[in-house]
């Protein structure tokens, strides 16, 4: 019996979208794998096992090969991410200006370790490599919004203001 729940049909649509993308590619083989995974992560938000299996079948390669690539590149994730992704730049320019302390302040404030996502899927916290905005060091990016010259004491107000702004 097929599943009638809304999540199921939504999921089916997402798989269809990915399937159409794969069909539109000039080559449906291993050489397109990274490109397909980028699109898959864009569609699903992350790369769960079912998606990896689906991609493997479509490109006619072993699932292990797909997982090998997913686990190799830090841009790909096989766990869901939070609604708000907080990225603290840990490039050298930001590091020497105290981004380590800013990350610690976020860890304390959100009660998460770097790389973790909260259980309610609200926040993901991560330290990222250079975002190339060294003139604004230390830099924090929450979803698309960039905060420059951040000090650890600004962390609480950044979280509050960001939530207020996005909710309004």
């Amino acid at each position, binding site marked *: 019996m097929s599943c009638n729940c809304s999540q199921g049909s939504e999921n089916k649509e997402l798989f269809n979208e990915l399937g159409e993308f794969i069909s539109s590619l000039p080559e449906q083989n*291993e050489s397109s794998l990274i490109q397909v995974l*980028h699109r898959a992560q864009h569609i699903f938000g992350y790369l769960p096992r079912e998606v990896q299996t689906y991609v493997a079948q479509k490109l006619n390669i072993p699932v292990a090969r797909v997982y090998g690539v997913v686990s*190799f590149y830090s841009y790909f994730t096989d766990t869901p991410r939070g609604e708000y992704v907080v990225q603290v730049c840990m490039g050298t320019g930001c590091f*020497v200006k105290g981004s380590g302390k800013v990350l610690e302040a976020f860890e304390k404030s959100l009660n998460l370790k770097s790389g973790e996502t909260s259980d309610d899927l609200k926040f993901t916290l991560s330290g990222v490599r250079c975002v*190339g905005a060294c003139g604004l060091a230390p830099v924090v990016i929450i979803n698309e919004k960039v905060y420059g010259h951040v000090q650890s004491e600004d962390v609480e107000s950044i979280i509050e203001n960001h939530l207020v702004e996005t909710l309004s």
Partner: protein
Amino acid sequence: MRIQSVEELQTLHQNNQPLLALRRAEAYVGQERIIMVCGGTGCHSAQSKELKEALAEKIKEHNLEALVDVKATGCFGFCAEGPIIRVFPDDVFYVKVTPEDAEDIIVEHMKGGKPVERLLFTEPSINEKVPTMHDISFYKKQLRIALRNCGIIDPEEIDEYIAAEGYLALAKVFGMEPEAVTKLMTDSGLRGRGGAGFPTGMKWEATRRAAGDQKYIICNADEGDPGAFMDRSLLEGDPHSIIEAMAIAGYAIGADTGYVYIRAEYPLAIERLEIAIKQARERGLLGENILGSGFNFDVLIKYGAGAFVCGEETALMRSIEGMRGEPFNKTVFPSERGLWGKPTSTNNVETFANVPIIVNKGADWYNSIGTATSKGTKVFALGGKVSNVGLVEVPMGTTLRELVYDIGGGIPNDRALKAVQTGGPSGGCIPTEFLDTPIDYESLQSIGSMMGSGGMIVLDEDDCMVNIAKFYLEFTCEESCGKCTPCRIGTTRLLEMLEKITSGKGTLEDLDKLQELSEVVIDSSLCGLGKTAPNPIVSTIKYFRDEYEAHIVDQTCPAHVCKDLLQIVITDKCIGCTKCSRVCPVDAIEGSVKQLHVIDQETCIKCEACISACPVNAIIMQ
């Protein structure tokens, strides 16, 4: 739309000149003006897009549409003072402009004809406002060759690029034999700007000579070095110059396809590149039979996915092929067997940016700039503890002192310079005694660092050199692909020893072991990542051994950075407000109201809650 021949392109170049007329005008001629807003990542993040929209709105509001235009352009480099705008033809340079300033700029400057004084840059050395870009000390010693179009043209307008001699170099090489093109590059002395400095002409010539019908050009835009952002700025500010250079390289080596391998973390650069590729195809500057020459070439984009090792060319090729980005042994060079086993030439973004202008101006012009072994200019991302953080382009041979003090404006907050780190995780820390060394590939290598892709981080007395080495090792350890043992296990063991030292558990024997293992990792790793990963350790031990010894023997961190070796103490500034003792989670602070409080060091967990709670900054780490 399609440009059919070289003659048509030259005519278009002439016809497009009015587009840039205002920006090239020597003197103020009339009421017409153009406002160029920086659209580079730094300024973009600081709301330059909103600023541009606000300016456009105000122009409309004041009915100035016929006279005043506003456009986005590439990075001006002066990121610390962003968002930046430059007004032509009177050449006025505004810094730290916000959308709220739009009204004043339009009313006072565009209508009233008088620059807005408060938005001009104040030169710290003379404490005076400086109205034009060229008079600012940050720009005086710079020579913008790779960045020639950044800040001048709109990167999303191919016609502006053509007006600025764009694609004329490609047209010119069609009149040359491919061999003459590679020779031109060899004669110019251009070397790889990605870090290793391999002669570009030699690489092209080897690929040209290799047997094979199918060959490839790769543009390495996987800029993973933390603290470097020149490739990103070039792609964002002048994407057509990279496309043109790739086509020139394709013609020289006999390739019909070029790949740009770019970080997925650079969305703005990807967007600008996509626009540029589309425009070039529409004009027939990419595709089949370009300008009627019979030469076919197209550029495709491949996304990276966050792996530093993919900056290494063999790993990069694996990644383009859809696999894990693991490097392979160069028993046969990629110029013979590269991407999909075909002859391939991989060049860095900044290297490509130099190519069209070399073709246009000639090898002699280019090799007259720079030092004996390193020709031309180099773009550096100047960052860290320096006043003018930003992107700078200087002739090879400029000294570190000129970069840090004349261009960078020195160290802020009256701190003393300790070292300059160049080359990122593969480079080293250069102490102040080498400040007057002219920078080129060889001189940096001889003092234990390297050019790298051009990250240049200034460190002051508040930076702990052991901690800096640890920072880079954390990076390389995480980014090691794991294929070869010396790099996978070696960097891990090196990091463990550094952690031991910064936590006060190191021994002098560890210092010897660090050096010994560093040598092993350098000698035996498979690719450039491992071969250079220990450099930050080797150079800091060489020049700052006393700091390592202080951590080990004296159990102190001279720069007051390594937490495990520090104590939190309450100074006599304490007013006895009790706030600290109330926030302390482990009740380590004792003292009664209006009395000096004391921290019990045994109990203290160094959470620093008391430091933030103290209203009079009486609590410090030392």
